[in-house]
């Protein structure tokens, strides 16, 4: 077996020896172990992903079959769907909470909460995060925020009704939105979530800067960690802005301040500026980690070094930088100064450049490779092809004149789902499968994974591609019943088609849920390095023990030395980062910085 070759003496075998046995509570609930915290995040955010998905199904029912009783809808209370027929006010709650849950409590924690926690220390050779206890608090605060948000469904008037973007003054004035309590819960939840994200991000940044193993130089860091590091920087700088905005919104709702109330001199657009100044970096928080993990998987699946490692890193940094100066493109139709709009248009179009670099470099990595189509690789290739569509459709909206008919229509809904579902979620399906053995010591089912990928790929495109067309036809976002408009009536059959596809897409995801849960107990036992990968994490047993390495590993080379001559000399096509060849010298460990 090839994966025995790089086993390091002392790297495993009772790796937990220096830790006294812990009770169940210490080990799994109030854990400070970054891997357990990652797994906690995984279960919680998968739950919220399911919640978001269920909300989406109801939205699709209403759009496909407006006014018809929803199957099973009769269990909903009279205030939401009497007799199973969705009410307009419930419909807006659905779209609001679908967006909120998916963005803040599913995709963001899945990418950052789960994989920043799980991968950063494992991939840079650290024993844990820099601040394990703050890390634990970050998880519990995120869960608290999620529960506060979830509670919105069960208070009088129901969940918030202002869209996930919470545009003021609709969100600020209960008399206009019709929601009192839940609107405040939204603000409180976001403030708590912001705190959690900042705590997490401070941890990730400090860990990456200070806790790398000897020899793990900046340009030997795996791309996933680079992406997560830059994401953490975005998080630390962007989330406080949203927190500040949410606090002002909360004060408007409860203390009688007038930040967003034009009647008393406030500015309605101020909310949009603050929200999108956070919101666009947030968009990259939702895609950069996916890009990083996909890079990891594509290099592994292609058995080739990543094409243009340095430009990949600079592309990540470039996207993150541009992310701060493009927020105005969400406000092209808002009555913003048109000259400002021109500036934002150019900066937005420029994002195509680093994105193109990434896509072509992924293709360059696959070019003349030896492609192994394991499930993660399938999903990663799916990511590249779908992200490309999402990126290209963005150009339509970046060009301001073309944006006029497309803004706030289903076209933008298609675009965001091509990036967040076709992008982030495909990457996550790949990542979950790829690192599943590291988390749980077992493999997910390969045949089931392949069936899931292909069915998802097909139903996903059937669901979201036609949305471009109905968006071009002019269907506005968040409207309860498109059939009352004459110009939308002809395309109602397409809406029905999308709804059926969406139901199928949801059903296919149950396959993934089954695979995930079933493999926990009955999956094949994972070998130590199931994917023949180079990463430091695979020098540990599966699952890795608390504290990771007994002795900090040394790093001798970059993360993507697949098919190198040295590897071939060993009769394999991979070369783990921690494997010492006779020609390698040990990196010098630096002295500890003084504690003051």
């Amino acid at each position, binding site marked *: 077996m090839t994966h025995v070759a790089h086993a390091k003496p002392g790297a495993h075998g009772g790796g937990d020896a220096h830790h006294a046995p812990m009770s169940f509570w210490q080990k799994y609930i109030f854990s400070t172990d970054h891997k357990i915290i990652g797994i906690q995040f995984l279960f919680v955010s998968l739950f919220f992903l399911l919640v978001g998905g269920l909300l989406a199904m109801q939205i699709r029912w209403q759009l496909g079959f407006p006014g018809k009783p929803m199957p099973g809808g009769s269990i909903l209370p009279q205030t939401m769907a009497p007799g199973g027929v969705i009410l307009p006010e419930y419909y807006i709650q659905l779209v609001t909470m679908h967006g909120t849950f998916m963005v803040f409590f599913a995709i963001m924690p899945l990418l950052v909460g789960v994989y920043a926690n799980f991968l950063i220390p494992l991939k840079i050779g650290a024993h844990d995060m820099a601040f*394990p206890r703050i890390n634990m608090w970050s998880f519990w605060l995120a869960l608290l925020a999620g529960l506060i948000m979830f509670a919105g469904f069960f208070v009088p008037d129901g969940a918030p009704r202002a869209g996930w973007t919470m545009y003021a003054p609709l969100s600020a004035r209960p008399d206009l939105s019709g929601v009192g309590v839940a609107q405040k819960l939204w603000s409180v939840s976001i403030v708590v979530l912001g705190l959690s994200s900042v705590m997490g991000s401070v*941890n990730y940044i400090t860990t990456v800067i200070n*806790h790398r193993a000897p020899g*793990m130089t900046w340009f030997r860091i795996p791309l996933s960690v680079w992406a997560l590091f830059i994401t953490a920087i975005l998080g630390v700088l962007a989330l406080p802005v949203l927190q500040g905005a949410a606090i002002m919104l909360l004060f408007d709702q409860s203390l009688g*301040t*007038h930040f967003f109330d034009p009647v008393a001199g406030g500015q309605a657009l101020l909310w949009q500026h603050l929200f999108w100044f956070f919101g666009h970096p947030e968009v990259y928080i939702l895609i950069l980690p996916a890009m990083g993990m996909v890079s990891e998987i594509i290099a592994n699946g292609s058995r080739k070094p990543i094409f243009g490692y340095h430009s990949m890193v600079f592309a990540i940094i470039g996207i993150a930088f541009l992310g701060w100066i493009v927020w105005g493109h969400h406000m092209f139709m808002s009555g913003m100064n048109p000259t400002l709009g021109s500036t934002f248009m150019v900066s937005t179009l420029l994002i195509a450049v680093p994105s193109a670099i990434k896509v072509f470099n992924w293709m360059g990595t696959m070019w003349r490779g030896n492609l192994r189509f394991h499930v993660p690789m399938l999903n990663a290739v799916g990511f590249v092809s779908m992200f490309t569509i999402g990126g290209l459709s963005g150009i339509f909206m970046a060009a301001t004149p073309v944006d006029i008919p497309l803004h706030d229509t289903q076209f933008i809904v298609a675009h965001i789902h091509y990036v967040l579902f076709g992008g982030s979620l495909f990457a996550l399906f790949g990542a979950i499968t790829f690192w599943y053995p590291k988390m749980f010591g077992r493999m997910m089912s390969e045949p089931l994974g392949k069936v899931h990928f292909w069915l998802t790929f097909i139903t996903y495109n059937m669901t979201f591609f036609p949305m471009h067309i109905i968006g071009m036809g002019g269907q506005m976002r968040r409207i309860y019943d498109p059939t009352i408009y004459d110009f939308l009536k002809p395309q109602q059959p397409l809406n029905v088609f999308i709804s059926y596809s969406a139901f199928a897409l949801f059903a296919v995801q149950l396959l993934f849920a089954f695979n995930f849960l079933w493999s926990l107990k009955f999956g094949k036992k994972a070998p130590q390095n199931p994917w023949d990968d180079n990463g430091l994490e695979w020098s540990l047993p599966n699952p890795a023990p608390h504290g990771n390495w007994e002795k900090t590993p040394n790093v001798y080379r970059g993360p993507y030395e697949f098919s190198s001559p040295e590897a071939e000399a060993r009769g394999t096509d991979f070369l783990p980062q921690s494997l010492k060849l006779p020609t390698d010298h040990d*990196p010098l460990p630096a002295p500890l910085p003084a504690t*003051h």
Partner: protein
Amino acid sequence: MTHATQTLDQMRPPFPAETGSGVYSKKLGMWVFLASDVMFFTALIGSYIILRFGMSTPWAKPGAVLNVPLTGVNTFLLICSSVAMVKAYAAIADGKKYFLRKVPGKTLQDGGLKFWLLVTILCGAAFVSIQVVEYIKLIGEGFTPAGYREGSLLAEHAAADPIKYGLGVAGMYGSTFFTMTGFHGFHVTCGVISMLYLYFTKVLPEKYSPQDYAGIEIIGLYWHFVDLVWIILFTIVYLI
């Protein structure tokens, strides 16, 4: 300290020579947090600037509504507490764990960590107390987050002299003033509580030494940052 963090401290990983920040993790983490706090205050102060620029009627004249002498005293207190903090830092770096000690040849006694940190805490606590008094007085006069309260003394003054009291901007004035100074006060309170905690768990038991006084340094960074924010706030809220 939990078991896990103890073992982690024992097996702190070595630092690669040519990389890393060159400072220990807690300090680095505090700086990253401060950067994030800058963005938080950007949201609040930025909104104030944006809203003030957007008003069509003039803002209230400095000192018309707010009590500048009182907050001037507050500013003084915060500057004093900041310098006391840095003196505490210098004291423990020199190994002075004591409260006060007689130094030969000098009339004033020499302050150690215990003395200077106590001064810091007292000044900080006094700042918060004065701010609470200020709030109570302002609200009593009729200045609330929603603007000038109907029928209050302030509303009468404002009606008589709308330019001086910025009648047209009362709502914005109240909103921004209370939010900005309120969150600054919240930061000060958090700092005072943390310092009290350190004072009783680490400073009085003399756990800090010239080899390890990370706690003093990072709480100091936070404290100076809060002072820095106040310097900006005092000028743009009270004086302009």
